[in-house]
């Protein structure tokens, strides 16, 4: 909660003014019984109709002033609350968009969405109500007590005892029930979970003939929920009766003591009525306060959920720092020569140098040796890279080393869960390596500016996601200032030209949210085009052709080959056909590099590759 208060900072004025005007309203309200007492004691006692009318108008005046200050208070409260939630929402959204991949894995999409929407709305109404009522209720309660003091000190002592007693009851019941309500909520979640399971898994459940077991399971959780609700209900049902008893006990005492005092002439009849009025005002306010507290606890719970999101990611910043340090250490450990370090610092020139050197070596098998051995830099170099996802016990990638030359096409193949996607995700720096390092043009990835680095990459993720807008607006994600020709060129390369040409409005054809109005294959080709618009230095296709038929897939690979001199391409696939023509194929098995080389080499030497290949081309095995 504390974390969120900063977003109220710009509304300091409103946060002060809203309760202040509420206070005014409360003060005017507190004057009402006094005026009434005067009407009784002076007006009625003296039979003075003029006085009664005057006081009556005074009551109406008080009501008017009360209305005015209350309206003002509502305005400031609304302004502060809405402003607060607007700022909070923007900040939270910004924070989520800035989360690293690791953090996002942890966060979970659907809960982020509820936190951004309904949770913040709850917090907003919590803030609004708090500003409006939280001061008002105590003011009325204590104000009533103070007013009682001005009438008679001894009588007011009854208030002094009653108020804490009421507070103990109200807060006591709240404290007891609050954790119970949380339990009710989790009971409801469980019931919800079972219901959803039975819908999403209906085929499996019916196939295994588990309907009766499921009904029993649901009924158990349903019953448990009801029992819990009843239990909480019984406790919270005490609130009203108990407070009612306390207040009325006080009223009884007031009547009796008041009668004694009237008898002695220490109080007038009208004053007793006024004191009784104050007591009933307290009762009314208490009910409001109790409701407010429920609302506030809800809002607080939501605020906690929102604040929790802000704590995600703080950790990764630290990790990044730590990562930089270890990165530096590995630099030293690797025994990099002084000369190399200076070269690395002048990043660009080193890159150019590497390019030159590569040109010289063109033709002669370059690349297998790492830069430190012969003083030159391969374009991209993985050095003993390992990756452990946060919270995971096992390494996802272990000791992976390889080099890639500029313009090469690299195929990555391996079984389910062998780490193919993890490997390519390291190249744009989506995840930091846990051990080892990755060098691009001889410079550690961690030394690059993240955004500048990513702008050189074209990434086509496994899940083809497009955004509401037009085809053009989606393609412009790749390069905001791309020209018409650039867009068409990318579409052509991605075999997506005919999709766009077939649409009404062509580039300006509408794309629905998440690209729902496009087929899987169309979406995939458009996401490829989006990555190609920026004419990337490194293109990563993560199983991006899975929804394409074999013919389109082949055409796509054909056209990508035309980019060879400028673009280094990584293709992740399960289809051997997609990668067999790559300059270099990396075979992953359980996070380790099981083989590396061209198709022919691997088919000769690498058992894992053979198994994969022949599982898809059994004829060839037979023919061998």
């Amino acid at each position, binding site marked *: 909660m504390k974390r969120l208060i900063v977003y109220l900072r710009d509304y300091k004025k409103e946060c002060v003014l809203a309760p202040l005007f509420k206070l005014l309203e409360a003060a005017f309200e507190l004057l009402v019984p006094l*005026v009434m007492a005067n*009407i009784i004691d002076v*007006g009625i006692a003296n039979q003075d*109709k003029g006085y*009664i*009318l005057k006081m*009556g108008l005074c009551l109406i005046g008080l*009501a008017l002033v*009360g*209305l005015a200050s*209350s309206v003002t208070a*509502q305005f400031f*409260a*609304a*302004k502060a609350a809405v402003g607060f*939630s*607007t700022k909070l*929402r923007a900040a939270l959204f910004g924070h989520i968009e800035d989360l690293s991949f690791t953090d*996002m894995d942890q966060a979970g*999409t659907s809960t982020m969405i509820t936190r951004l929407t309904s949770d913040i709305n709850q917090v907003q109404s919590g803030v*609004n109500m708090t500003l409006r009522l939280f001061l008002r209720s105590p003011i009325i309660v204590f104000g009533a007590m103070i007013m009682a003091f001005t009438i008679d000190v001894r009588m007011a002592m009854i208030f002094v005892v009653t108020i804490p007693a009421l507070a103990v009851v109200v807060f006591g019941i709240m404290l007891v029930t609050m954790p119970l309500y949380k339990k009710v909520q989790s009971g409801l979640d469980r019931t919800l*979970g079972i219901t*959803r399971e039975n*819908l*999403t898994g209906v*085929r*499996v459940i*019916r196939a*295994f*003939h588990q309907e009766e077991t499921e*009904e029993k399971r649901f*009924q158990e959780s349903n019953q448990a929920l*009801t029992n819990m*609700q009843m239990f909480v209900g*019984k406790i919270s*049902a005490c609130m*009203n009766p108990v407070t009612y008893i306390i207040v009325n*006990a006080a*009223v*009884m005492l007031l*009547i009796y003591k008041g*009668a004694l005092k009237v*008898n002695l*002439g220490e109080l007038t*009849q009208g004053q007793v009525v006024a004191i*009784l009025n104050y007591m*009933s005002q307290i009762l009314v306010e208490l009910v409001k306060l109790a409701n407010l507290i429920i609302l506030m606890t809800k809002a607080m719970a939501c605020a906690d959920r929102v604040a929790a999101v802000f704590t995600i990611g703080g950790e990764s910043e630290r990790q990044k720092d730590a990562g930089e340090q270890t990165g530096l250490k590995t630099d030293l450990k690797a025994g990099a020569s002084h000369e190399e370090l200076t070269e690395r610092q002048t990043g660009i020139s080193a890159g150019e140098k590497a390019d030159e050197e590569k040109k010289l070596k063109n033709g002669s098998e370059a690349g297998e040796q790492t830069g430190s051995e012969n003083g030159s830099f391969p374009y991209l170099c993985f050095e003993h890279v390992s990756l452990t996802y946060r919270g995971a*016990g096992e390494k996802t990638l272990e000791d992976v080393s390889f080099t890639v030359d500029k313009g090469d096409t690299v195929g990555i193949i*391996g*079984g389910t869960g062998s780490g193919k996607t993890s490997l390519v995700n390291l190249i*744009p720096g989506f995840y930091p390596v846990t051990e080892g390092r990755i060098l691009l043009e001889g410079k550690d990835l961690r030394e690059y500016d993240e955004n500048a680095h990513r702008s050189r*990459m074209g990434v086509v993720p496994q899940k083809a996601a497009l955004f509401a807008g037009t085809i053009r607006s989606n393609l412009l*994600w790749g390069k905001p200032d791309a020209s018409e020709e650039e867009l068409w060129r990318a579409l052509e390369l991605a075999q997506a030209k005919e999709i766009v040409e077939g649409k009404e409005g062509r580039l300006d054809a509408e794309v629905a949210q998440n690209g729902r109005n496009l087929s899987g294959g169309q979406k995939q080709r458009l996401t490829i085009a989006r990555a190609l618009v920026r004419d990337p230095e490194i293109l990563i296709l993560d199983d991006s052709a899975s929804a394409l*038929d*074999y013919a389109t897939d082949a055409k796509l690979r054909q056209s990508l080959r035309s980019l060879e001199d400028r673009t280094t391409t990584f293709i992740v696939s*399960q*289809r051997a056909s997609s990668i067999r023509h790559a300059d270099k194929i990396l075979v992953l098995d359980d996070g380790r590099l099981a083989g590396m080389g061209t198709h022919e080499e691997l088919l000769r030497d690498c058992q894992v590759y053979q198994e*994969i290949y022949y*599982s898809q*081309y059994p004829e060839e095995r037979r023919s061998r």
Partner: protein
Amino acid sequence: MAKNVVSPDKKTTWKKTLHYIGKYKFMALLSLLLAAVTVALTLYIPILTGDAVDLMIDVGLVDLAGILKIVKKIGVAVILTALAQWVMNTCNNYICYHVVQDVRKDAFAKIEILPLSYLDAHAAGDVVSRVIADVDTLADGLLMGFTQLFTGVLTIGGTLVFMLIYNIPITLVVVCITPLSFLVAKFIATRTHDMFLEQSKTRGEQTALIEEMVGSQKIVRTFSREQAVKDQFGEINERLQKCSLKAIFFSSLTNPCTRFVNSIVYAGVGIFGAFFAVGGGITVGRLSCFLSYANQYTKPFNEISGVITELQNAFACAARVFALIDQEPQTPEDADAAVLEQAKGRVELEDVCFSYVPDRKLIENLNLKVRPGQRVAIVGPTGCGKTTVINLLMRFYDVDRGSISVDGTDIRHLTRGSLRTNYGMVLQETWLRGGSILDNIRMGRPEATEEEAVAAAKAAHAHSFIKRLPQGYHTVITEDGGSLSQGQKQLLCIARVMLCLPPMLILDEATSSIDTRTEMKIQNAFAKMMEGRTSFIVAHRLSTIREADIILVMKDGNIIEQGDHESLLARNGFYANLYNSQFAG
């Protein structure tokens, strides 16, 4: 929310709700009675207080004994009120929560017997929200209705009666001014309606953006579009701020305004009451009683209007739940439906016709005879009806015409449960339930030992990844499988079937997410499993179905070719074409 409800008939919704409450008739009557008692007593207490005030006129003129008597009366009344209140509240809780429990139970029971056609056509989220959120709203509405509607109405009526008894003119003042508060509330509500509409529209727009951009946050990051997206969000956010402020401010005027009307009522009672008192028409004590009535009288009006909106909302939600409960269930089983024990595996389809939508024919005159132990593969382009055949075999859907029989008995004369347990099914859509890995594997045979489950997992090549999970077989996974990959989930589904080993198998794209190498290994396990078992295999990859005894090539709901791999290739038809296109890399 209520958009897709077919105009909820309010009357029937009422009736149905009352029907559910009817089970707790006694409780409801008790609650009503207690409400009446509570209201009467709470109204009586101000009168007693007023009487007491009238007994303390001035110095020396105080009837202490009388006052003590009154105070005692108040004490008894208060304790009775508190008791009645508590019992009433508990009754109300009891009724509401049990009604809700009953409604949920019925809704869930209906889900278990709804035809697949309904469930396939309705998003799971929608049905879940009916069973959970809508029922919850119903509970809230009922509870509020019970606690506040009765007491509110009774309070208003009671107050009127009491006031009329004591002083008619002052009562008239109260009765005349109070409607003002209604008018004000109504005026504000109609004025703010459009503002709220605008607000929810803007909110919807923002939520859509949030869903997209948070859902695809990684892509946003990949293209470094964070700032652009934030700007887009900021623009909507600003608009939302403006219309939210308007809506919230103007709607929040209701309270001050009605309170103002209350104050006017109070002032009116004060002035008129005092005038009467001067004329001796009313005592001071009565006047104080009237004043507290004036406070009490207007409050229920505000409450009731709140309750009514809440109730309307509750009934709209209830209508959605009842619509689910009233759905036509699947065709009930014959009373004498046979139980299929261990099937031999002779499956025959005779002139089967089926379509999901009446005017779009899908499967027509499908004939097929499968001998026990045969392997049947079904291939064909997307949408040709492969999965539909599986739906019919499992009797997830009933055939429109023709018949399907197992071991010579029409499956419509068999119990669904026994038919389905004779099939082991692995689908492309992997589904795991929240729970431990072990529970998931044992789903079809809860009584299996852990050793048996491990053996099944080994057969499905799932053992190696399971044992690497933090708690091995006891690792608890979430409903969507959590961190498990699609392939791993599929392996678990296979292990699940391996444990049951039913006499017939259905594999619908069972290995689509598993890499080819693991698939090969699983194929061996499958092959072992399929030995002597009738099996139906749907596959995309033709390499996985080469070994089948019968290959059905489907197109547009018809079987266009039938035979084994070699003969089909030799025929050089659709199948050969399909097969060759796959390997033209």
